[in-house]
Protein backbone atom coordinates (compact mmCIF):
# COMPACT_ATOMS: atom_id res chain seq x y z
CA UNK A 1 0.00 0.00 0.00
CA UNK A 2 1.45 3.41 -0.91
CA UNK A 3 1.13 6.56 1.16
CA UNK A 4 -1.51 7.86 -1.26
CA UNK A 5 -3.70 4.81 -0.63
CA UNK A 6 -3.73 5.23 3.13
CA UNK A 7 -6.93 6.80 4.44
CA UNK A 8 -7.05 10.48 5.36
CA UNK A 9 -9.47 13.08 6.62
CA UNK A 10 -10.71 15.83 4.34
CA UNK A 11 -10.14 19.47 5.30
CA UNK A 12 -13.73 19.62 6.56
CA UNK A 13 -13.26 16.52 8.67
CA UNK A 14 -10.08 18.00 10.16
CA UNK A 15 -11.85 21.29 10.84
CA UNK A 16 -14.77 19.46 12.49
CA UNK A 17 -12.34 17.73 14.88
CA UNK A 18 -10.77 21.04 15.88
CA UNK A 19 -14.21 22.60 16.33
CA UNK A 20 -15.44 19.73 18.50
CA UNK A 21 -12.57 20.34 20.93
CA UNK A 22 -13.40 24.02 21.46
CA UNK A 23 -15.46 24.60 24.60
CA UNK A 24 -18.67 26.61 24.67
CA UNK A 25 -17.80 30.18 25.71
CA UNK A 26 -14.20 30.04 24.47
CA UNK A 27 -12.46 33.00 22.82
CA UNK A 28 -10.58 31.74 19.79
CA UNK A 29 -8.27 33.09 17.11
CA UNK A 30 -8.26 31.19 13.83
CA UNK A 31 -5.13 31.79 11.80
CA UNK A 32 -4.93 32.39 8.07
CA UNK A 33 -5.26 29.39 5.72
CA UNK A 34 -6.59 25.99 6.83
CA UNK A 35 -7.76 27.14 10.29
CA UNK A 36 -10.32 29.56 8.80
CA UNK A 37 -12.32 26.45 7.86
CA UNK A 38 -12.93 25.71 11.55
CA UNK A 39 -15.42 28.61 11.72
CA UNK A 40 -17.84 26.67 9.48
CA UNK A 41 -18.09 23.98 12.17
CA UNK A 42 -18.82 26.26 15.12
CA UNK A 43 -22.35 27.19 14.05
CA UNK A 44 -24.15 24.68 16.24
CA UNK A 45 -25.55 26.89 18.97
CA UNK A 46 -22.45 27.11 21.11
CA UNK A 47 -21.28 30.66 21.86
CA UNK A 48 -17.68 30.81 20.72
CA UNK A 49 -16.19 34.27 20.27
CA UNK A 50 -13.81 34.71 17.36
CA UNK A 51 -10.93 37.15 17.84
CA UNK A 52 -9.06 38.74 14.99
CA UNK A 53 -5.84 40.57 15.78
CA UNK A 54 -6.66 43.59 13.62
CA UNK A 55 -9.11 44.66 16.28
CA UNK A 56 -12.34 42.70 16.50
CA UNK A 57 -13.96 40.28 18.94
CA UNK A 58 -17.19 38.71 17.72
CA UNK A 59 -16.30 38.10 14.09
CA UNK A 60 -19.06 36.55 12.01
CA UNK A 61 -18.93 34.67 8.71
CA UNK A 62 -18.09 36.17 5.31
CA UNK A 63 -20.70 38.65 4.04
CA UNK A 64 -23.03 37.99 1.13
CA UNK A 65 -21.87 39.25 -2.25
CA UNK A 66 -22.32 43.01 -2.37
CA UNK A 67 -22.39 43.42 1.43
CA UNK A 68 -18.61 43.60 1.85
CA UNK A 69 -17.30 46.60 3.77
CA UNK A 70 -13.75 47.76 3.14
CA UNK A 71 -13.37 48.67 6.82
CA UNK A 72 -14.63 45.36 8.23
CA UNK A 73 -11.95 42.75 7.57
CA UNK A 74 -10.09 39.93 9.29
CA UNK A 75 -6.36 39.42 9.76
CA UNK A 76 -6.18 37.86 6.29
CA UNK A 77 -7.72 41.12 4.98
CA UNK A 78 -10.86 39.27 3.86
CA UNK A 79 -14.28 40.87 4.41
CA UNK A 80 -16.16 39.58 7.45
CA UNK A 81 -19.32 40.38 9.42
CA UNK A 82 -20.17 41.11 13.05
CA UNK A 83 -22.18 39.03 15.50
CA UNK A 84 -24.29 40.65 18.25
CA UNK A 85 -21.96 41.49 21.14
CA UNK A 86 -19.00 42.30 18.90
CA UNK A 87 -16.44 44.93 19.90
CA UNK A 88 -13.67 46.87 18.19
CA UNK A 89 -10.32 47.83 19.72
CA UNK A 90 -6.91 49.06 18.65
CA UNK A 91 -3.90 46.92 17.78
CA UNK A 92 -2.10 47.20 21.14
CA UNK A 93 -5.22 45.93 22.94
CA UNK A 94 -5.68 43.20 20.33
CA UNK A 95 -2.24 41.81 21.13
CA UNK A 96 -2.58 42.42 24.86
CA UNK A 97 -5.49 39.99 24.66
CA UNK A 98 -3.07 37.34 23.37
CA UNK A 99 0.07 38.10 25.33
CA UNK A 100 -1.90 38.69 28.49
CA UNK A 101 -3.32 35.17 28.40
CA UNK A 102 -6.92 36.19 27.78
CA UNK A 103 -7.37 34.15 24.62
CA UNK A 104 -8.34 30.51 25.16
CA UNK A 105 -7.27 28.90 21.90
CA UNK A 106 -5.36 29.86 18.81
CA UNK A 107 -5.38 27.58 15.76
CA UNK A 108 -2.53 28.07 13.30
CA UNK A 109 -1.22 26.60 10.08
CA UNK A 110 2.41 25.48 9.98
CA UNK A 111 5.33 24.53 7.74
CA UNK A 112 6.70 22.30 10.49
CA UNK A 113 6.04 21.39 14.10
CA UNK A 114 8.63 19.57 16.18
CA UNK A 115 7.86 16.79 18.64
CA UNK A 116 8.70 19.29 21.40
CA UNK A 117 6.07 21.72 20.20
CA UNK A 118 8.39 24.10 18.36
CA UNK A 119 6.47 25.91 15.64
CA UNK A 120 7.81 27.04 12.25
CA UNK A 121 5.23 28.87 10.18
CA UNK A 122 6.55 32.29 9.16
CA UNK A 123 9.59 31.91 6.91
CA UNK A 124 10.94 29.22 4.64
CA UNK A 125 14.44 30.51 5.26
CA UNK A 126 15.21 30.76 1.55
CA UNK A 127 17.80 33.49 1.04
CA UNK A 128 15.83 35.47 -1.56
CA UNK A 129 12.49 35.18 0.26
CA UNK A 130 11.10 38.46 1.53
CA UNK A 131 10.48 37.90 5.23
CA UNK A 132 7.06 38.73 6.65
CA UNK A 133 6.05 37.76 10.17
CA UNK A 134 2.78 39.57 10.84
CA UNK A 135 1.19 38.36 14.06
CA UNK A 136 2.48 34.78 13.84
CA UNK A 137 5.03 35.03 16.67
CA UNK A 138 2.64 36.87 18.96
CA UNK A 139 -0.16 34.38 18.29
CA UNK A 140 2.00 31.33 18.88
CA UNK A 141 2.98 32.37 22.38
CA UNK A 142 -0.19 34.24 23.25
CA UNK A 143 -3.12 31.92 23.62
CA UNK A 144 -3.51 29.52 26.54
CA UNK A 145 -3.55 26.69 24.00
CA UNK A 146 -1.87 26.86 20.61
CA UNK A 147 -3.08 24.19 18.22
CA UNK A 148 -1.77 23.53 14.74
CA UNK A 149 -3.78 22.29 11.79
CA UNK A 150 -1.76 20.95 8.87
CA UNK A 151 -1.38 17.91 6.61
CA UNK A 152 0.93 15.28 8.08
CA UNK A 153 3.03 15.31 4.89
CA UNK A 154 3.73 17.95 2.26
CA UNK A 155 2.49 17.42 -1.32
CA UNK A 156 5.97 16.12 -2.06
CA UNK A 157 5.64 13.59 0.77
CA UNK A 158 7.99 15.31 3.19
CA UNK A 159 7.23 15.08 6.89
CA UNK A 160 5.92 18.20 8.61
CA UNK A 161 5.87 16.72 12.11
CA UNK A 162 9.59 16.39 12.78
CA UNK A 163 12.12 15.71 15.53
CA UNK A 164 13.65 19.18 15.01
CA UNK A 165 12.40 22.00 12.73
CA UNK A 166 14.68 22.95 9.80
CA UNK A 167 12.74 26.12 9.07
CA UNK A 168 13.28 29.24 11.19
CA UNK A 169 11.19 29.04 14.36
CA UNK A 170 8.12 31.13 15.03
CA UNK A 171 8.13 30.14 18.68
CA UNK A 172 9.87 27.31 20.55
CA UNK A 173 7.85 24.91 22.68
CA UNK A 174 4.52 26.56 21.97
CA UNK A 175 2.23 24.00 20.31
CA UNK A 176 0.18 21.66 22.49
CA UNK A 177 -1.87 19.80 19.89
CA UNK A 178 -1.58 19.03 16.17
CA UNK A 179 -4.54 18.18 13.93
CA UNK A 180 -3.42 16.47 10.74
CA UNK A 181 -5.21 14.63 7.95
CA UNK A 182 -4.11 11.26 9.39
CA UNK A 183 -4.26 11.69 13.15
CA UNK A 184 -4.58 14.12 16.04
CA UNK A 185 -1.60 14.36 18.40
CA UNK A 186 -1.04 15.84 21.83
CA UNK A 187 2.48 17.07 22.43
CA UNK A 188 3.65 15.75 25.79
CA UNK A 189 6.94 15.58 27.65
CA UNK A 190 7.26 11.93 26.64
CA UNK A 191 6.59 12.48 22.93
CA UNK A 192 3.52 12.61 20.76
CA UNK A 193 0.39 11.09 22.18
CA UNK A 194 -1.97 9.87 19.47
CA UNK A 195 -5.45 11.13 20.39
CA UNK A 196 -7.20 9.79 17.33
CA UNK A 197 -6.28 8.05 14.08
CA UNK A 198 -8.27 8.22 10.88
CA UNK A 199 -10.41 5.09 10.59
CA UNK A 200 -8.61 2.36 8.69
CA UNK A 201 -5.11 3.65 9.46
CA UNK A 202 -3.22 1.26 11.68
CA UNK A 203 -0.80 2.26 14.42
CA UNK A 204 2.03 0.76 12.32
CA UNK A 205 0.96 2.77 9.25
CA UNK A 206 0.97 5.95 11.31
CA UNK A 207 4.36 5.16 12.87
CA UNK A 208 5.69 4.65 9.34
CA UNK A 209 4.28 7.98 8.16
CA UNK A 210 5.70 10.03 11.04
CA UNK A 211 9.14 8.41 10.97
CA UNK A 212 11.60 9.27 13.71
CA UNK A 213 9.17 11.02 15.97
CA UNK A 214 8.41 9.25 19.24
CA UNK A 215 4.82 8.09 19.26
CA UNK A 216 2.75 7.07 22.20
CA UNK A 217 -0.48 5.24 21.48
CA UNK A 218 -3.25 5.62 24.05
CA UNK A 219 -3.15 2.89 26.70
Amino acid at each position, binding site marked *: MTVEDLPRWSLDEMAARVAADIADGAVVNLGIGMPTKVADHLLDGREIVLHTE*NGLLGMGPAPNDGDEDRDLINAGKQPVTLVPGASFFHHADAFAMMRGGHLDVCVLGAFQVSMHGDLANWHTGEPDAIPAVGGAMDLAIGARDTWVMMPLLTREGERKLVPVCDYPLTAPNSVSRVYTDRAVFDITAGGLLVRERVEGLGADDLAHLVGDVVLEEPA
Partner: protein
Amino acid sequence: MIDKIVPDLETAVSDVRDGHTVLVGGFGTAGMPFALVDALIEHGARDLTIVSNNAGNGETGLAALLKAGQVRKVVCSFPRQPDSWVFDELYRSGELELELVPQGNLAERLRAAGAGIGAFYSPTAVGTQLAEGRETRRIDGRDYVLEYPIRGDVALIKALRGDRWGNLVYRMTARNFAPVMAMAAETTIVEVHEVVELGALDPEVVVTPGIFVQHVVQVTDPFVDGAA
Protein backbone atom coordinates in the same frame (compact mmCIF):
# COMPACT_ATOMS: atom_id res chain seq x y z
CA MET B 1 -9.47 78.96 21.42
CA ILE B 2 -8.18 75.57 20.34
CA ASP B 3 -8.64 74.83 16.67
CA LYS B 4 -6.71 71.91 15.17
CA ILE B 5 -8.71 71.92 11.95
CA VAL B 6 -6.53 72.77 8.97
CA PRO B 7 -8.02 73.91 5.66
CA ASP B 8 -6.29 71.52 3.28
CA LEU B 9 -3.98 68.53 2.93
CA GLU B 10 -1.00 70.65 1.88
CA THR B 11 -1.15 72.58 5.15
CA ALA B 12 -1.73 69.37 7.10
CA VAL B 13 1.58 67.77 6.05
CA SER B 14 3.68 70.94 5.92
CA ASP B 15 5.51 70.01 9.17
CA VAL B 16 7.14 66.92 7.63
CA ARG B 17 10.90 67.27 7.09
CA ASP B 18 13.53 65.23 5.25
CA GLY B 19 14.75 62.35 7.44
CA HIS B 20 11.61 62.20 9.55
CA THR B 21 10.16 59.01 10.98
CA VAL B 22 6.56 58.88 9.79
CA LEU B 23 4.03 56.51 11.37
CA VAL B 24 1.34 55.55 8.88
CA GLY B 25 -1.90 53.95 10.10
CA GLY B 26 -3.79 51.19 8.35
CA PHE B 27 -3.91 47.42 8.08
CA GLY B 28 -3.77 46.69 4.40
CA THR B 29 -6.05 49.37 3.00
CA ALA B 30 -8.41 49.57 6.02
CA GLY B 31 -7.57 52.78 7.82
CA MET B 32 -4.84 53.72 5.36
CA PRO B 33 -4.78 57.56 5.19
CA PHE B 34 -4.55 57.67 1.41
CA ALA B 35 -5.17 61.42 1.08
CA LEU B 36 -2.42 62.31 3.57
CA VAL B 37 0.05 59.91 1.95
CA ASP B 38 -0.72 61.47 -1.44
CA ALA B 39 -0.14 64.89 0.13
CA LEU B 40 3.21 63.67 1.48
CA ILE B 41 4.21 62.59 -2.03
CA GLU B 42 3.25 66.05 -3.31
CA HIS B 43 5.16 67.65 -0.41
CA GLY B 44 8.29 65.75 -1.47
CA ALA B 45 10.03 65.10 1.87
CA ARG B 46 12.77 62.49 1.36
CA ASP B 47 14.94 60.06 3.29
CA LEU B 48 11.92 59.05 5.38
CA THR B 49 11.58 56.11 7.73
CA ILE B 50 8.07 54.71 7.42
CA VAL B 51 6.50 52.72 10.25
CA SER B 52 3.38 50.85 9.16
CA ASN B 53 2.00 47.33 9.38
CA ASN B 54 2.40 46.67 5.65
CA ALA B 55 4.60 48.14 2.96
CA GLY B 56 2.05 49.19 0.37
CA ASN B 57 -0.49 47.60 -1.93
CA GLY B 58 -0.55 47.97 -5.71
CA GLU B 59 0.67 51.40 -6.82
CA THR B 60 -1.29 53.59 -4.42
CA GLY B 61 -0.75 54.90 -0.89
CA LEU B 62 2.48 53.69 0.69
CA ALA B 63 3.46 51.87 -2.49
CA ALA B 64 3.30 55.16 -4.38
CA LEU B 65 5.39 56.87 -1.69
CA LEU B 66 8.02 54.12 -1.98
CA LYS B 67 7.95 54.34 -5.74
CA ALA B 68 8.54 58.10 -5.56
CA GLY B 69 11.91 57.32 -3.90
CA GLN B 70 11.11 59.22 -0.70
CA VAL B 71 11.68 56.35 1.72
CA ARG B 72 14.99 55.09 3.14
CA LYS B 73 13.70 52.51 5.60
CA VAL B 74 10.51 50.62 6.36
CA VAL B 75 9.63 49.29 9.82
CA CYS B 76 6.75 46.85 9.48
CA SER B 77 5.43 43.38 10.31
CA PHE B 78 4.20 42.14 6.96
CA PRO B 79 5.77 43.66 3.85
CA ARG B 80 5.20 40.67 1.56
CA GLN B 81 1.72 40.59 0.05
CA PRO B 82 0.39 39.46 -3.31
CA ASP B 83 0.33 43.09 -4.51
CA SER B 84 3.48 44.46 -2.81
CA TRP B 85 5.63 44.46 -5.95
CA VAL B 86 6.87 48.03 -5.45
CA PHE B 87 8.32 47.15 -2.04
CA ASP B 88 9.61 43.77 -3.24
CA GLU B 89 11.62 45.31 -6.05
CA LEU B 90 13.15 48.10 -3.95
CA TYR B 91 13.99 45.67 -1.15
CA ARG B 92 15.62 43.15 -3.49
CA SER B 93 17.68 45.86 -5.17
CA GLY B 94 18.94 46.99 -1.74
CA GLU B 95 17.50 50.50 -2.09
CA LEU B 96 15.25 50.06 0.91
CA GLU B 97 16.16 48.99 4.43
CA LEU B 98 13.68 46.75 6.28
CA GLU B 99 13.21 46.30 10.02
CA LEU B 100 10.83 43.39 10.49
CA VAL B 101 8.89 43.56 13.77
CA PRO B 102 6.25 41.09 14.98
CA GLN B 103 2.88 42.80 14.78
CA GLY B 104 2.13 42.81 18.51
CA ASN B 105 5.59 44.13 19.34
CA LEU B 106 5.13 46.85 16.73
CA ALA B 107 1.87 47.96 18.36
CA GLU B 108 3.28 47.78 21.88
CA ARG B 109 6.49 49.64 20.95
CA LEU B 110 4.34 52.46 19.57
CA ARG B 111 2.14 52.42 22.67
CA ALA B 112 5.25 52.49 24.88
CA ALA B 113 6.57 55.55 23.06
CA GLY B 114 3.28 57.32 23.60
CA ALA B 115 3.13 56.30 27.24
CA GLY B 116 6.67 57.36 28.16
CA ILE B 117 7.95 53.83 28.75
CA GLY B 118 11.74 53.51 28.36
CA ALA B 119 11.64 49.88 27.16
CA PHE B 120 9.77 46.70 28.00
CA TYR B 121 10.22 42.93 27.97
CA SER B 122 8.04 40.96 25.56
CA PRO B 123 7.70 37.18 25.32
CA THR B 124 7.11 37.43 21.55
CA ALA B 125 9.98 36.33 19.29
CA VAL B 126 12.04 34.76 22.10
CA GLY B 127 14.13 31.92 20.66
CA THR B 128 13.72 33.09 17.06
CA GLN B 129 15.86 34.84 14.42
CA LEU B 130 14.13 38.13 15.22
CA ALA B 131 15.53 38.10 18.75
CA GLU B 132 19.11 37.14 17.84
CA GLY B 133 21.68 39.34 19.54
CA ARG B 134 19.08 41.04 21.68
CA GLU B 135 18.94 41.37 25.42
CA THR B 136 16.73 38.75 27.06
CA ARG B 137 15.70 38.17 30.64
CA ARG B 138 13.97 35.38 32.53
CA ILE B 139 11.17 36.72 34.74
CA ASP B 140 9.17 34.32 36.90
CA GLY B 141 10.38 31.39 34.83
CA ARG B 142 9.49 32.84 31.44
CA ASP B 143 11.88 34.31 28.87
CA TYR B 144 11.42 37.78 27.44
CA VAL B 145 13.23 39.99 24.93
CA LEU B 146 13.89 43.68 25.48
CA GLU B 147 11.93 45.95 23.16
CA TYR B 148 12.43 49.69 22.72
CA PRO B 149 9.74 52.25 21.91
CA ILE B 150 9.17 53.51 18.38
CA ARG B 151 8.67 57.25 18.31
CA GLY B 152 7.43 59.14 15.30
CA ASP B 153 8.18 62.67 14.28
CA VAL B 154 4.86 62.57 12.50
CA ALA B 155 1.87 60.21 12.42
CA LEU B 156 -0.54 60.11 9.50
CA ILE B 157 -3.80 58.42 10.45
CA LYS B 158 -7.43 58.19 9.36
CA ALA B 159 -10.56 58.48 11.48
CA LEU B 160 -14.28 58.63 10.87
CA ARG B 161 -15.09 61.83 12.77
CA GLY B 162 -13.11 64.46 14.60
CA ASP B 163 -13.72 67.80 16.29
CA ARG B 164 -11.58 70.96 16.54
CA TRP B 165 -9.97 69.68 19.75
CA GLY B 166 -8.81 66.59 17.88
CA ASN B 167 -11.11 64.07 19.58
CA LEU B 168 -11.57 61.09 17.27
CA VAL B 169 -13.80 58.14 16.62
CA TYR B 170 -12.98 55.47 14.06
CA ARG B 171 -14.82 53.13 11.74
CA MET B 172 -14.75 49.40 12.54
CA THR B 173 -11.42 47.62 11.88
CA ALA B 174 -10.05 50.76 10.22
CA ARG B 175 -9.08 51.78 13.77
CA ASN B 176 -6.19 49.27 13.99
CA PHE B 177 -2.88 51.12 14.64
CA ALA B 178 -4.23 54.69 14.63
CA PRO B 179 -4.78 55.19 18.39
CA VAL B 180 -1.27 54.02 19.35
CA MET B 181 0.36 55.94 16.50
CA ALA B 182 -1.48 59.10 17.55
CA MET B 183 0.11 58.72 21.00
CA ALA B 184 3.58 57.93 19.68
CA ALA B 185 4.19 60.90 17.37
CA GLU B 186 5.35 64.45 18.03
CA THR B 187 2.84 65.66 15.44
CA THR B 188 -0.25 63.62 14.67
CA ILE B 189 -2.15 64.49 11.53
CA VAL B 190 -5.59 62.99 10.94
CA GLU B 191 -7.76 62.80 7.87
CA VAL B 192 -11.38 62.53 8.98
CA HIS B 193 -14.43 61.76 6.93
CA GLU B 194 -16.36 64.40 8.83
CA VAL B 195 -15.45 67.30 11.10
CA VAL B 196 -18.13 67.73 13.74
CA GLU B 197 -18.94 70.51 16.22
CA LEU B 198 -17.24 70.44 19.61
CA GLY B 199 -19.56 68.50 21.90
CA ALA B 200 -21.09 66.43 19.12
CA LEU B 201 -18.95 63.38 19.94
CA ASP B 202 -20.24 61.51 23.00
CA PRO B 203 -17.38 61.71 25.54
CA GLU B 204 -18.14 58.08 26.49
CA VAL B 205 -17.21 56.86 23.03
CA VAL B 206 -14.27 59.10 22.09
CA VAL B 207 -11.48 56.65 21.24
CA THR B 208 -8.55 59.04 20.81
CA PRO B 209 -8.72 62.08 23.08
CA GLY B 210 -7.63 65.30 21.38
CA ILE B 211 -4.48 65.62 23.49
CA PHE B 212 -2.81 63.12 21.10
CA VAL B 213 -3.78 65.03 17.95
CA GLN B 214 -2.27 68.16 16.38
CA HIS B 215 -3.94 68.61 12.98
CA VAL B 216 -7.28 67.48 11.57
CA VAL B 217 -8.23 67.76 7.92
CA GLN B 218 -11.57 66.80 6.44
CA VAL B 219 -11.42 64.39 3.51
CA THR B 220 -14.95 63.29 2.72
CA ASP B 221 -14.98 59.62 1.77
CA PRO B 222 -17.83 58.75 -0.58
CA PHE B 223 -17.48 55.06 0.35
CA VAL B 224 -18.43 55.76 3.97
CA ASP B 225 -21.62 57.61 3.02
CA GLY B 226 -22.53 54.84 0.62
CA ALA B 227 -22.02 52.18 3.31
CA ALA B 228 -23.82 54.07 6.08
